[in-house]
């Protein structure tokens, strides 16, 4: 099993956001986590990736059968956990190329491999840029600086392609994307999908799921999963909205 979350409780400050969350993800699977705003979806992503300030008060996160609750974010990343950010961060003065090279070589160092040669690295950049239809000038710019909303999201998928994670969490990657950009992002994900990796797609809407077909759909509400099903559940949600969930599971 790639990811196994057991009875997870997460607080920000004094406020409990995740309240007994369970999820198992195997290699080769695509899971969608849907639900209304403010239900803890992004908090879940932050807890899995080890963001500071998100305190696990109870429960376990296992990744490749190892308990990772206390791991630093960079260790999780180098072990293969990738987060496509809902709001990618700008880092002025640091070129995308330099950023990616630093990240890639950090991973290689972690794996006990020598740094990638400049030639090999550039070749890989070119190859992966094509995958998400990223223009060359973007990689010469500072990280996310002056990128449009769509470019930022494509850039997240580009980084994912470069780093080849075994578990990719896409946090609202579809939000703010027009239909063309959405298709590009979906194409990228579909090409990267393999028997050796898995995706957890966090989304509010089901439209991304028209292009990336999930094996499982989970409905999250008030910090836990309240319903799971197949692709059909997403369509059901699309038609009926989230109101019925609030009525059925709301306090």
């Amino acid at each position: 099993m790639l990811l196994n979350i057991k009875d997870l409780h997460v607080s920000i400050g004094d406020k409990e956001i995740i309240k007994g969350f369970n999820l198992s993800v195997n290699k080769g699977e695509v899971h969608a986590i849907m639900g209304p705003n403010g239900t803890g979806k992004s908090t879940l992503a932050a807890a899995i990736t080890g963001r500071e300030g998100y305190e696990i008060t109870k429960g376990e996160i296992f990744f490749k059968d190892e308990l990772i609750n206390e791991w630093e974010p960079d260790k999780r990343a180098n072990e293969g956990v990738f987060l496509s950010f809902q709001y990618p961060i700008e880092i002025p003065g640091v070129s995308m190329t330099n950023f990616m090279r630093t990240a890639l070589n950090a991973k290689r160092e972690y794996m006990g491999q020598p740094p990638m040669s400049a030639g090999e690295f550039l070749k890989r950049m070119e190859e992966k840029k094509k995958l998400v239809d990223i223009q060359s000038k973007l990689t010469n710019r500072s990280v996310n600086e002056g990128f449009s909303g769509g470019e930022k999201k494509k850039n997240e998928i580009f980084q994912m392609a470069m780093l080849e994670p075994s578990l990719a969490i896409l946090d609202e990657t579809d939000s703010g994307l027009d239909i063309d950009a959405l298709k590009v992002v979906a194409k990228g994900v579909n090409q990267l999908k393999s028997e050796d990796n898995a995706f957890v797609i966090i989304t509010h809407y089901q439209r991304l799921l028209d292009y990336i077909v999930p094996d499982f759909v989970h409905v999250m509400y008030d910090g836990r999963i309240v319903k799971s099903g197949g692709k059909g559940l997403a369509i059901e949600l699309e038609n009926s909205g989230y109101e019925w969930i609030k009525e059925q599971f709301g306090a």
Partner: protein
Amino acid sequence: MTDESKEKDVLQEVTSGEYKYGFFTDIEADQAPKGLSEDIIRFISAKKEEPEWLLEFRLKAYRHWLTIEEPDWALLKHPPIDYQDIIYYSAPKKKKELSSLDEVDPELLDTFNKLGISLEEQKHLAGVAVDAVVDSVSVKTTFQETLKKHDIIFSSFSEAVQEHPDLVKKYLGSVVPYTDNYFAALNSAVFTDGSFCFIPKGVRCPIELSTYFRINAANTGQFERTLIVAEEGGYVSYLEGCTAPMRDENQLHAAIVELIALDNAEIKYSTVQNWYPGDKNGKGGIYNFVTKRGLCKGNSSKISWTQVETGSAITWKYPSCILLGDNSVGEFYSVAVTNNFQQADTGTKMMHLGKNTKSTIISKGISAGHSNNSYRGMVRVGKRAENARNFSQCDSLLLGDKCGAHTFPYIKTNNPTAIVEHEATTSKISEDQLFYCQQRGIDMEKSIGLIVNGYAKEVLNKLPMEFAVEAQKLLAITLEGSVG
């Protein structure tokens, strides 16, 4: 762990970052007794076999120094300096003339290797001419032959006094007179060596020139002087680097750099200053009181200062430009990093005197630990300076909540056509940026290095290529561990 305790933890790490150049080389030194008097000045002058006029210059400076007080306007705190407790002359023993590297004291060569400056290597790979000053005396000037072909003079200051007394006499003190300030007067009285560079009319210096300063002996002050003259149409790019061993007591460094650019000449002066900053409790470290000034004497001349300041317990330094020639250009690019209990009060003065003169000031301050980092700058536009333009940008980056960043911009314009712009920002390294880097597998330390280097990039880009890499590493080392 909460945000705050994590931050404290990481700050702990920053503050324990070790100084990597703190070794001491055991070389026999030829020293003057402690203290300062006219006799000591005569001793120094005699040691250096100086002409009478230079001794006179020193004595006048000394007598002036006795009448003035240490300045107290900078945002710096330190116990009073006992000027009688300092050794004003210390030279590595080994008197004979050095003409090849083989003759340099092997201990000394080893010192340079530890500093990462192999003279040999630099000679062959970088094409950089290096003049190295240890304690007070210039040890080795490489690349003389190549420079000779272009009639460029690049030598130790002492040698220049012997070989080119007229040039030295003409320009010495012409930009920074001994009456300029307390530390300039002190330096003028006791300076022991330094570098001299003369670029004749129409010559573009084909290689980067470089000086390395090192304080080695205990209780010594280092008082060097650098004088660079570029005649009409001349060009030179010059770099200085400095380090010192770790010692518990504070050591004084009071240097003067004078630059003179005639018509259409350009001087680019870069500094990577890494004097010993003191330990994490603020004990020891170099007091760095330096006067640097460039005179754009000719029309369309240009002087550009680039500095990366990571060392010293105290830095008091304002590399300035006097824009006398019409259409002359002055630039100041600075990255100043302070950590632990370091204090820096640094900036620039741009004095617009000629018509259509332009100046640019880009200052990036980075403070961590309990340090204080101030930008102090003055832009002055004289009556005659029609259409003078200045752009200043002063950014401060704070790592942690125990350090301080201050900005003191002074602007005085006496000409209504002048356009003077000043922008200033203060920011903290954001937790968002750090997490973003870490999520990509980059550890905390490297992430901070990456972000800080990005922040300082505008300035680092102005450094000669091979030194930019060195400066980037230095920034990362200085801030090792930083912030959450």
